[in-house]
């Protein structure tokens, strides 16, 4: 390895904090280099999709009610945040499995936590531009004045973390790529329409509200909304706990899937 003096070469010995940090940094560069086309395309599509929702929702109504606009505008950033990690992450892993590059990636001499951390960072970075553009567009289109509080930082970080880790776990745990594609498609569908992200929970039937109480996605919207508005949401602490619990579940699932031999 040393003889090649490659810019991505890792030093020996392979242990300790320095190795972890170096692996983490190397993998971020690896992802950014490998996915540069993909990520720039993705950022564009995310911005377009966010803009699409913000402008498109007005077409549902002759005159859009202010609450409907507010919910869509604060919900779109949540979708932007989880889209990369939760939906496109597993599809990417599925594609690697089909192409045969999956085994190679897994054989890289890096700590699993550094690999997961690097992937989280890339997903967060890929989602943030779309979040910013969505909020600016919302402000321009509906004249909504967001009251951004410092709690937006942990809200965004945790939402992206849980989304990414769940996607990471799913992608690695599901052996069949077709199943992964199917599940992610159902997820994206549910997130747009069956979870109170883009509209108030009161517009859903009671049983669906109950179900969403146990799932992380509606709570992601609650914590992000709490960082962007005042007086719109309640029970923020419980929402943080539920989103964090799902994040932990995602970590456990990833750990199990990656710890397997096979």
């Amino acid at each position, binding site marked *: 390895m040393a003889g090649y003096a490659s810019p991505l070469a890792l030093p020996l010995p392979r242990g300790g904090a320095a190795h972890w940090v170096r692996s983490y940094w190397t993998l971020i560069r690896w992802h950014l280099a490998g996915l540069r086309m*993909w990520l720039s*395309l*993705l950022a564009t*599509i*995310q911005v*377009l*999709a966010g803009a*699409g*929702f913000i402008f*498109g*929702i007005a*077409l*549902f*109504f*002759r005159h859009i*009610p202010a*609450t*409907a606009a507010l919910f869509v505008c604060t919900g779109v950033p949540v979708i932007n945040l989880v*889209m990369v990690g939760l*939906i*496109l992450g597993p*599809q*990417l892993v599925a*594609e690697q499995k*089909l*192409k045969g590059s999956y085994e190679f990636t897994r054989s890289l001499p890096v700590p699993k936590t550094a690999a997961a951390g690097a992937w989280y960072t890339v997903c967060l970075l890929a989602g943030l531009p779309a979040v910013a553009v969505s909020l600016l567009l919302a402000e321009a289109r509906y004249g909504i004045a967001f009251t951004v509080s410092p709690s937006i930082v942990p809200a965004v970080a945790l939402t992206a973390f849980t989304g990414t880790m769940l996607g990471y776990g799913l992608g690695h745990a599901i052996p069949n*790529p*077709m199943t992964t*594609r*199917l599940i992610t*498609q*159902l997820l*994206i*569908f549910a997130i*747009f*329409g*069956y979870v109170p992200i*883009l*509209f108030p929970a009161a*517009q*859903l039937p009671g049983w669906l509200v109950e179900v969403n109480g146990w799932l992380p996605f509606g709570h992601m919207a609650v914590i992000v909304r709490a960082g962007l508005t005042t007086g719109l949401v309640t029970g923020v602490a419980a929402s943080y706990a539920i989103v964090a619990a799902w994040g932990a579940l995602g970590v456990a699932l990833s750990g199990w899937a990656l710890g397997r031999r096979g």
Partner: protein
Amino acid sequence: MTSTVPGAVAGGRLRLPAGRRSGAGYWLACLRVMLRFDLGRARSWAPMMVLIQILMGAGMAVMYGFFYPRITPAVALYISTGTPTLALVPLGFVLIPGIVGQDKTEGTYDFVWSLPVPRSAQAVSTFVLYTLLCLPGTVLALVVATWRYGLHLTVSPQLIPAVLVSALVAVSVGFGMALMIPDPSIANLIANTLIFVVLLFSPIVFPPANLPGWLFAVDRVLPFYNMAEVIRAGLTTGLVTDLVPCYLTLLGWLAAGWLMTTWVLGRRR
């Protein structure tokens, strides 16, 4: 796939007529064989496809209702009659590109195109199969929507050509596009993300009067609104008036889908 191939080689049910490999008779025999071949391959995912379609069609019909604080009868009528289109569009523009993409990655086309069968017969077989697979999910989605919103629709015979043409357009354009775009993962990404936006901006589940004029002008050229209109005309009376431009636009898209397919299939590699 491997289970079907030996049958073809060993003179099983998939044998083609001996002698000159041309003429209408030979083409029809090829179509029959390809249909059986495609049906055999489809067995693994066809039930899943119908299921997804029911979820997408019926699921989206229910979902659109959640976006409204109050569902008026007019809102309910537009959502219900737009449902069949909602069931057809994701199938043609997301699911089929996904399947084509996977076939490309796995190298299936390299095999299929090497068969001693005209490629036109292969394409027609694909279109027929997918169009037929579209139908059960579309009908079920409509049933679910009418039940959810408690509507009584007046079904007329013109619903049949409307659904058939719309399904064929969705399948043909989706298939042609998927063949044209070289990288399947990019095709998949674009399809997945933009389909919801396309559906948002097309007056399928809401009246065109909600749209600004220029946007409606765009939608009249795209296939989605026109599919919704011809199907809506078969489910209601008096809501849709002039169907000729809708059908003409749809036939144009059908031709475009077939042209794209022909172009890719006709190329030598």
